[in-house]
Each structure stands twice: as structure tokens, then as C-alpha cells.
């Protein structure tokens, strides 16, 4: 019996096209995600171990180098790119069709490649949309074909003709996270001089699982940071007029001149605070042009407050906080109540107002503002004097 099994195994092995190189897919790049330029002044290179998020899925393209060499006795007539729900399931036809299907052929892009049997080597650079990696059939960005919003998919190459003799190359694991994080709650703001302090609560405790190409996984807290959104947008002052202040024309048109949304045209009342819906909503949260228009700050990690600077004194503002997870997915809080930045009394003003008579350096020694006189200079002068005296004594 054992001999039969061995013989059958050898026969199957000889019939299968062999793959000389164990690593068929080599990651080259992933480009097109808005996450690459979302931080002012920096460009972020997304790594293959970072999960694909909703915003990546919509715009991103993954590039791989493919190296396939068949030296079996039965050379394949073609190759196809497939996505599997598990690491090694696509070789069997039962997993590719019917109710037990666990593998799906990528229908967009370049699903099939013909190779020349006499030169059984295939080497290429392929670009696959992130949406096709997650949902190879429809290219949607809501869930994988198994219905999961988080997890991993496995890219592999199958030899044609497709049958139970088809070879599945070693799969390349790609993690994805299409689940938005928990929303920050209870946003509240207090005004300062040309600034406001925004605080919020956040209970999110989910973890993110990332998978590298080889399938190794690691977990971490699924939180990247918080964006602070301002209404009116930075630089916009509600002046009570009816003319456009130069804001986004499409956004202006979208609210039909409803001036309680400060898309660049004016609120109905001088110094009014927005009373309608916050201009960034769950519907336009992932529209980068809208989001960037209203963003006025970012804090990384698990912060629970941030100071927004550069505001206009006397102009009412309200704020919303957006949680962003490690896959770039965002969730919007409700809007805070309105605050009005204005002049504040610092300690010096309070002291002087109570009759304090101390003079500052500016008063005592001319215009010394703009930099602190480091007391080390005073100490250094003392030390230098001591050293000089000592040297003189030694010379004598």
C-alpha cells in the first residue's frame, strides 16, 4: 500500500509544472493612496505590511515583480492571478467554484498571461488595484469575498489549464482593514488668544493585525491619531456678506447657498457660528479635498486634547475630531459647541494690573525681547573670573 502511495505521489509530482523559484511575487511599491501626502510637509511611503484601508482601496495600486519558471514535463499554457482566503487553497478546483469557493480570479487588470511552452519562464512587473486584491471579482472596498472587513488575502499564480493538476505558486499575504475606528466622543473646546484647546474622549481599544508577505502576523493598537477639523475652515471669516470668499465652488454649490455651512461663502450674521450640520460629514469624510479644507491640526497616538493655533480672535469656531486607525480609516465625531478665541490675561498683565511695579529686561536694558538671556552667561562670567585669578596666582 505504501508503495502505491509513493508511486502516485511521484506521478503527480512529475505531472505538475515545477516552480524553480520559491518566491514568485516580490513587492515593489504601493502608490496612489491619499495617505502618502496627508501630513503637511511630509511624504509617507506605505509599506507592504501596512494593511489596506478604505481610502487606500479606492485609489491605490500595488506593483509586484513576478518571476515564474516551469521546468516540469507538462509546461502550462498560461498563468492567472488569483486571490485566496487562505494561504494555500487555490490549487484544488473545489476551492475555485461552487459553494465551497475560497479562491477568486482577479477579473480586472491583467488576469491572464500566456507563456511560451518552449521557454517556460515568465518574468513581469504587474500592477494590481488594491480594490482587486480585496475583492478580485467586483473591485469593491467594503469587504473581501468571504464577507470579512478585516484580515488577510493571499495573492498567488495558477497555471493554466485550470484543473486539479494546476500549480499554485507560493502565495503573497496582504492584510486589509476596511473597518472604521470607533468615533471620538464628547468633543469640547475652550478658546484662548488666537487659539483653542480641543478635548475629546476615546474608548477605542481594537487591535490591528498586520501580515507581511510571508504570512507572519503582528498586532498593535489600531489607532494612528486624531485630526481636528475647524468650522469655519482655517482662513475663512464669516463676515455677513453674500459674496464668495474664494472657497471651493463645488462645495458652495452643493449646499445651495445655505450659508450656515462656511464653504467659503459667508454666514448670514457677522461673527456667526455654524448652526447647521458640520460641513464634514460621514458622507464626504473620505473626500480628500473636503477633508483637507477643514482640517486644522493633527495629534498622533492616544492624545485626548490638542491646541489649534492661528485662529481669528472674535470669530466663533466649532470643532470636530476624526479618529484615524493604522489603515487610514477615519471616523468623525459630533461637533463641539462654539467657542470664540479672544484676548487673554497672562500672569504679567494680572500682576501689573494689581499694581506690581517690577521692571522687565526690556524696560531696564532696552529692547531685549525676542530671546532669553541664559543665566549661564552670568555663571560663565563668574567661572572665568575665578580661573583668571587662579592663573595669575600660579604665575606669581
Amino acid at each position, binding site marked *: 500500500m505504501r508503495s502505491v502511495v509513493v508511486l502516485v505521489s511521484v506521478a503527480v509530482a512529475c505531472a505538475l509544472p515545477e516552480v524553480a523559484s520559491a518566491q514568485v511575487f516580490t513587492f515593489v511599491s504601493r502608490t496612489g493612496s491619499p495617505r502618502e501626502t496627508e501630513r*503637511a510637509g511630509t511624504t509617507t511611503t506605505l509599506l507592504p505590511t501596512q494593511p489596506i484601508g478604505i481610502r487606500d482601496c479606492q485609489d491605490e495600486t500595488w506593483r509586484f515583480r513576478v518571476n515564474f519558471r516551469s521546468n516540469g514535463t507538462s509546461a502550462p499554457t498560461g498563468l492567472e492571478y488569483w486571490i485566496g482566503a487562505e494561504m494555500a487553497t487555490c490549487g484544488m478546483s473545489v476551492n475555485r467554484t461552487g459553494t465551497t469557493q475560497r479562491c477568486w480570479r482577479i477579473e480586472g487588470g491583467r488576469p491572464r498571461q500566456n507563456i511560451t511552452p518552449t521557454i517556460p519562464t515568465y518574468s513581469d512587473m504587474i500592477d494590481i488595484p488594491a480594490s482587486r486584491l480585496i475583492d478580485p471579482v467586483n473591485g469593491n472596498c467594503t469587504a473581501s469575498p468571504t464577507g470579512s472587513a478585516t484580515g488577510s488575502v493571499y495573492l498567488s499564480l495558477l497555471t493554466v489549464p485550470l484543473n486539479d493538476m494546476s500549480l499554485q505558486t507560493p502565495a503573497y499575504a496582504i492584510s486589509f482593514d476596511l473597518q472604521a475606528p470607533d468615533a471620538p466622543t464628547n468633543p469640547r473646546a*475652550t*478658546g*484662548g*488668544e*488666537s*487659539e*483653542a*484647546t480641543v478635548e475629546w474622549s476615546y474608548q477605542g481599544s481594537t487591535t490591528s493585525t498586520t501580515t507581511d508577505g510571508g504570512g507572519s502576523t503582528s498586532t498593535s493598537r489600531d489607532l494612528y*491619531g486624531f485630526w481636528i477639523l475647524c468650522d469655519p475652515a482655517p*482662513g475663512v471669516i464669516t463676515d455677513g456678506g453674500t459674496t464668495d470668499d474664494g472657497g471651493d465652488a463645488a462645495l458652495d454649490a452643493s449646499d445651495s447657498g445655505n450659508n450656515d455651512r462656511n464653504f467659503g461663502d459667508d454666514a448670514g450674521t457677522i461673527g456667526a457660528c455654524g448652526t447647521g450640520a458640520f460641513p464634514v460629514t460621514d458622507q464626504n469624510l473620505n473626500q480628500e479635498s473636503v477633508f*483637507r*479644507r477643514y*482640517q*486644522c*491640526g*493633527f*495629534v498622533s*497616538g492616544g*492624545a485626548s*486634547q*490638542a*491646541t*489649534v*493655533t*492661528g485662529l481669528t480672535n472674535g470669530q466663533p469656531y466649532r470643532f470636530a475630531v476624526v479618529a484615524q486607525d493604522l489603515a487610514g480609516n477615519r471616523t468623525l465625531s459630533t461637533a463641539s459647541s462654539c467657542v470664540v478665541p479672544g*484676548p*487673554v*490675561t497672562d*500672569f*504679567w*498683565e*494680572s*500682576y501689573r494690573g*494689581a499694581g*506690581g*511695579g*517690577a*521692571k*522687565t*529686561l*526690556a*524696560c*531696564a536694558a532696552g529692547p*531685549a*525681547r525676542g530671546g*532669553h*538671556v*541664559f*543665566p*549661564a552667561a*552670568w*555663571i*560663565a562670567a563668574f567661572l*572665568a573670573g*575665578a*580661573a583668571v585669578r*587662579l*592663573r595669575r596666582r*600660579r604665575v606669581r
Partner: protein
Amino acid sequence: MKKLQMFALAVSLTAPGLARAQTFTIGGTDRGRDRYESNQNFALEVRGGPWLPNVDDEPGVRGCPFASYFADSYDGPTTNPCNARVDDRLMVSLEFDWQALRINYVGTLGLGVSVGYSSLSAFAPTTQSDGSAGMRTGQRSSLHVVPTYAVAVFRFDAIARHTVVPIVPYVKAGFGVDYWWVSIGGDPVTGGSQVYHSTDPRLLPESHSDERPGTEAVEGLTTGLRYAAGVMFRLDFLEPRVQRAWDLEMGVNHSYLFAEYSVADMRGQFSSSPSLNLSWSNFTFGVALEF
């Protein structure tokens, strides 16, 4: 950066001289010194303790602007600003002594210089139309103080050197200069996280500027007198071999824990113009090394 350069230049100029400094001796041979002990010329103290300046004691100041501004609690109705109570803050400082003269069988007389830091912070109130203070905002205003002083130090170490009682009483007296500044707003970083701003160019001119409104510091100097008396507890007897090895390898003769009562009479006595009253008195504690 200029400050650092100036400090580095001063240190580089003075360090060689100090390195060659020695302790002069009067009163005969130093019999209290161990046969294998290295030369002892300096002392270094690292200290910390409660600190609260008496700003409101300045003549001419109405009410209690300092206490009411930095109030942590109230002893009575909040309508009376002088019911405000401010908790002590931590003052940390470093003192370097040159033990210039050994008076045998008694102790050492030296010169010491020190620099420290402490601050108070409170949420600034809004300025109402009549100029009075309104509700507290989320913006902080702080008083920062960098006290420096130069003192004569006498350490009565005869007890520790000639008996088994490991204590060294000491006294200090000298003058000081406190450098202070008041800030509003400050670093727009809270919660330990960096705030990044929009790529929107309308924000960049203000938010990326160090000169944004409200953060300009007011600064000044307060001169005065400094006194202190304390007791050092010599740690050598706990691990004599370790201390001896430390001396052989690094030249540290003795190590101490100390407690000191410090008096800072900082009212601008050496200044022709009125100064912020930064007087205080309290206990400080720390560790000291003689080397």
C-alpha cells in the same frame, strides 16, 4: 544656539584652569585624610525641594495677583483673591563648589555656584471689555524662574573625618540673580503629541511661525541674597570598599545625602529698578559628591 555656544566657550575657557585648581591648606598637615585617598578639591550637589515665591509680598501690590492667578485651591470664598492657595512647586538645581581652602581640624571654605529651574503654570483667563479677567481659557500662562547664585560655603567636616559620626554640617551665604520670564500660550503641543497643521497654505504663515500672537515672553532679573544651612550625611561607612574603589577609579572621595534649609531673599536689593519678588525659604534635599 548662541546661548549654547557662549556657554560652551565659557566652559572651555575656564575648565582647564579649574582642572588645575587646588585646595590650599592652613593649620598644618591634613591628618584627617586617608593615606590612599586622592586629592579633594570640589563638591557637586544635585538638589530638589519645594519652591513658592512670595510675589504678592511686594510693596504696592494690591490683593494677591500671584496667588489668585496660580491658585490650586481656596481657603475661603473665591471672591477674595487672597483666599487662594498655591501649592509648592518643585525646584531642581545643581551646585558646584570649589573647596578652595582647607582649615585643618575644622573643615573647608569654598566658593559655590548654582543654577536651577522651576515654574508655575495656570490657565489664562479671558480679558473682558473692561480689562478685567473673565473665565479661564484653555491657554496657559506660566512663570518660569532660573535661579542662580554664588555663595561662600563652609563645611565643618571635622566630625566626619575624625570621629565615627558621619555628618558634615555646613553653612552658605552669598548673592543670587534669578532670571525669570512669563509666557502665554507656549508650545502648541499637548498630551505629548505633536500638532501638525493643514497643508492648506492659508494656515502656514501663522501656524508655522515661532512669533505667533500671544507667545511673546516678558523677562526680567531679580537680585538678592542667599543663605543656607544644612547637614550632610556621609555614605562612605555603608560600603567603605566601594567608596574607596570609586575614589581610586574616578577620584570621588566622599558621597552624601543632605538636607538643607535655604533662604532666598530675592527682592532686587542690588537693582536700581523695582524687581519681581522671588523670595522663598524652605527645605531642600539632595545628593552630593566630593572629588
